[in-house]
């Protein structure tokens, strides 16, 4: 092995080490951001503005803060905020589905009571 070749090997090794160090560094890939944004859109479409407004607001704020943190270079904070936004969007979707189902149950129960000739049940919807 010539000295030139040894230098090339050392440089390659150093480059690999540097690349590994960069790879180990926490970062926020665009996929996570897109997932959180898609979850927020899904929550809005599910009617979270009506059934889970608090969770929806949290998810929106956290997504925005994650973008700001990414732009400011705080990638760890951005990742955490994206996870929180995602889970809040999921919670908003679940609450919206439950609320809609309970409303359908109430409507159906009232229709059945009307068919039976009874006064419809007046039960306020439960909040989980």
């Amino acid at each position: 092995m010539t000295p030139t070749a040894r230098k090339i090997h050392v440089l390659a090794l150093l480059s690999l080490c540097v690349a590994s160090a960069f790879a180990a560094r926490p970062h926020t890939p665009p996929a996570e951001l897109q997932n959180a944004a898609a979850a927020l859109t899904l929550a809005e479409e599910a009617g979270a503005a009506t059934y889970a407004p608090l969770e929806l607001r949290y998810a929106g704020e956290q997504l925005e803060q994650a973008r700001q943190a990414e732009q400011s270079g705080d990638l760890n904070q951005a990742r955490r905020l994206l996870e929180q936004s995602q889970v809040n969007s999921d919670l908003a979707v679940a609450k919206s589905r439950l609320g809609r189902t309970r409303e359908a149950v109430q409507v159906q129960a009232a229709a059945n009571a009307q068919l039976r000739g009874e006064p419809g049940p007046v039960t306020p919807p439960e909040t989980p």
Partner: protein
Amino acid sequence: MRRAAALVFAALLAACGSAPRRDLDFDRLHASLQALATDPELGKLALAERALAEAAVRRLDASSINAKEHAQLSYLAERRVDIAYIAAQTEQEKARLAQLQREHAELLLAASRRETEAVRAELDRQRRDALLQQEEAERGGATPPQAGTAAVAAAAANSTPPAVPAATPPVVSLPDVDMTQAAAAAPAAASNATAGRAEPPAVDARRAGSAAQDGSALPATPSAAQAGTPPATPPATQDGAAQPPAPSASTSAASAPPPAAVPAPSATPAAQASSAPGTADAATAAADLPLAQRLAALTPDADSGGARITLEDLIFEPGTATFATGAEIGLARVAGWLAAAPAQAIRIEGHTDATGSPEANLSLSLRRAEAVRDALVARGVAAARIVVSGEGAAEPVASNDDAQGRARNRRVVVQLLDGG
């Protein structure tokens, strides 16, 4: 020195071997998940969401990195547990909704069945009403109203020549009818006699009506005829015109014994003179005058099997075997006729028209024949003499295509059997 170092090392080991630090968040979330898993209603629902929650709680348990990371994992795990609960409740509500929808379908089906039954009952009722109205209409066709009767009577009066100067005896001696409605026929015959017309009581209703009008064709009322006064009013206004000239006659008719007490066929002129003024009032008072006249004028017909009297269906309420008002006149005449031949057997046949089902017609004809039998037995006819049958629509005497023919087909025939 070595001992001191060994003691410190032992103390450190003891400190490390003590109970581990409790993670309260983990314990709380883990217990919550356990409660969800053991819930009898929610435990088997939303398994995917529960698995995600359990994974998040396990990550929390494994996190011993730092407080910030722990708080983050706790935040996520707590929401995952909430999502698992909510998803389970959603599935429970969906199952309830499906149950309610099934109940709704069953209720709709039951309501539809009830509605169908109601509509069917309403249709049946309307069909019965239509049949009754049709029968009533046929009655109307069989018995024209008074004005029509008067018109026919006037025509009959004009066309009937005064053939016999004195009243002839009836073909068959019929018993007296002690019914008030019989006054309709008796004065009619009486007025005939006074008018010099020979009209036996065996005329039909129109002829009887014409006989009543017969007197009015010359004078306005029978009393006017007796007095020889000219006619004052047209026949159509006979009801109103009959009262002014004889106001006391109506009261006397009301207080006098029943006009039927006077034998119709053998009415004497004197009796006619006393009963004739009441005739107009009786005619105006009786709403069923044509039926009463016809029944009062019932006569037997000769037949190959024996003499018979045909009772028309108008003596019954429509569609029933219940006697109508005034039917007693005809029944009394039939009973009297049968009493004149106590040794002969009697056959009573019920007949209907072809409308309706054969079974219903058979049943109705038999019930009507039995009703006539019962009425005759109540009037003294021996029940052992009577044979009853319901023929339904099997023996029509006229076409069933028109109302007139159907009205003739609905009848009860009382026959005296020759061999009896």
